[in-house]
């Protein structure tokens, strides 16, 4: 039997969660204050994942950058591949929250979507 101490990241409360493992299987989760904590702890010891957020450049928008996120969490070891895949991406305004920026983030099967609205510059503003 072994235990792992985790800090739940399901919400900003950051509960201290203790996971008990037996032969690699989770036998108990303690310290969490909501069901999300239980789910997070089980996943974190077997298959850790993260939502990744970053930015991409916008052409013809009222601001220079929009921000993007993975539509759902991806394996923790794919974080850098995911950011790398976004490095040279340029999108054209207007950008609306939810627009698909990349359909498949670094082979994870998860889309990267816009997380910020950027209006297009009017013709007058462009000049």
């Amino acid at each position, binding site marked *: 039997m072994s235990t792992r101490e985790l*800090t739940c990241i399901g919400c900003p409360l950051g509960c201290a969660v203790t996971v008990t493992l037996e032969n690699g299987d989770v036998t108990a989760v303690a310290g969490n204050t909501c069901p999300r904590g239980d789910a997070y702890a089980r996943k974190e010891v077997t298959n850790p994942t993260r939502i990744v957020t970053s930015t991409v450049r916008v052409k013809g928008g009222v601001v220079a*950058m929009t921000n993007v*996120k993975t539509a759902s969490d991806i394996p923790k070891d794919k974080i850098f591949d995911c950011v790398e895949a976004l490095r040279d991406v340029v999108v054209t305004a207007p950008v609306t929250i939810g627009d698909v920026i990349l359909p498949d983030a670094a082979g994870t099967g998860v889309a990267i979507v816009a997380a910020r*609205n950027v209006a297009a510059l009017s013709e007058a503003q462009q000049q």
Partner: protein
Amino acid sequence: MKQYDLVIVGGGPAGLAAAVSAKDSGIDSILIIERDRELGGILNQCIHNGFGLHTFKEELTGPEYASRFIDQVMERGIAYKLNTMVMDISPEKKVTAMNREDGMFEIDAKAVILAMGCRERSRGALNIPGYRPAGIYSAGTAQRLVNMEGYMPGREVVILGSGDIGLIMARRMTLEGAKVKVVAELMPYSGGLKRNIVQCLDDFGIPLKLSHTVVDIEGKERVEAVTIAEVGADRRPIPGTEERYTCDTLLLSCGLIPENELSKSAGVSINPITSGPVVNDSLETSIPGIFACGNVLHVHDLVDYVSQEASSAGKNAAAYIKNGAPADAKTVEIHPVDGVRYTVPKYIRPSEMDDNLTVRFRVGDVYKNCCIATYFDDALISRRKRPVMAPGEMEQVILSKAKLSEYPDLSKITIRIEEGE
């Protein structure tokens, strides 16, 4: 002179939620004044996720959270002015503002909500020795440069202070290809949320050195190296513990200070602990009809709590506009003692307050297995066990109007930290 029932100073999360709530409480004449080029405030540069779990039951990025409230403001047709700076608020609630289109103008308001937010403690306020080269930024400035303007402030980074923005920027700079060498924290505990330490430092193997501070900055044109040293219990550097890190950038994440120049010039009483206005149960300052909410009142951890607080301020300002100031009501002071640094609100009026009033506060140290105890005069009213409390995480007590009505002769409320069960 223009006239509005309600002027809201600041179009960030607090100002937006206050405006929506005031409108829904029946006030139509509302103006939000925002100094930046868009509504949303600091949320626009906070591109990480985790916002809104309490409010929307999902994890949003900062701009997504802001857009939910901006949409609500738009749907209600609430007026706002961008790129507009409020210069002065008078005790009579005359607001003086200026922008490039209108020049300087004055607005006569029946009520004002202060929602100006906070700003970061600067190098000058920290008294860090050494040269004054380029490459020293507050973490928030770096955040704006990277996330909104698309510039990288540097490649090799040392961060002083483990506030949340510093932790978030440690991850962000790392993802954008920088090497974050160390995060030094003066205190023996982090000022940031635990999950940020997990996700922003531990995930990337960035060391956090508690009880350490910067003792030297080298470089004439650009930062070339930073020396950190361990500090003792007196928070003074211990000779012989110095470590030198070559770097081109030093980020500072050493605390946030509510931005209350306007409040002070209006004559609003300021609590020296929070650096924010002293308010009563309706979040009204010492000047009737001037309310405060969000980080200008006290620095929050969670934007959800800012939105809740601002929503109350909007509703209360609407009641003030419609009904005027209530007749003299009995006021009871909340005394924060034994580890409780302050409370917001500081004063409550049992006859005027909501049925349940959330009192928020911070503790002054790390407490383990302690209780939050509430007393009405000498009578213990509630005792709530907390496995761990830290200055970086806001705590709360809920006061019940019904319970207060059982104590008609109440002279003071005390909230304290007590050991044991």
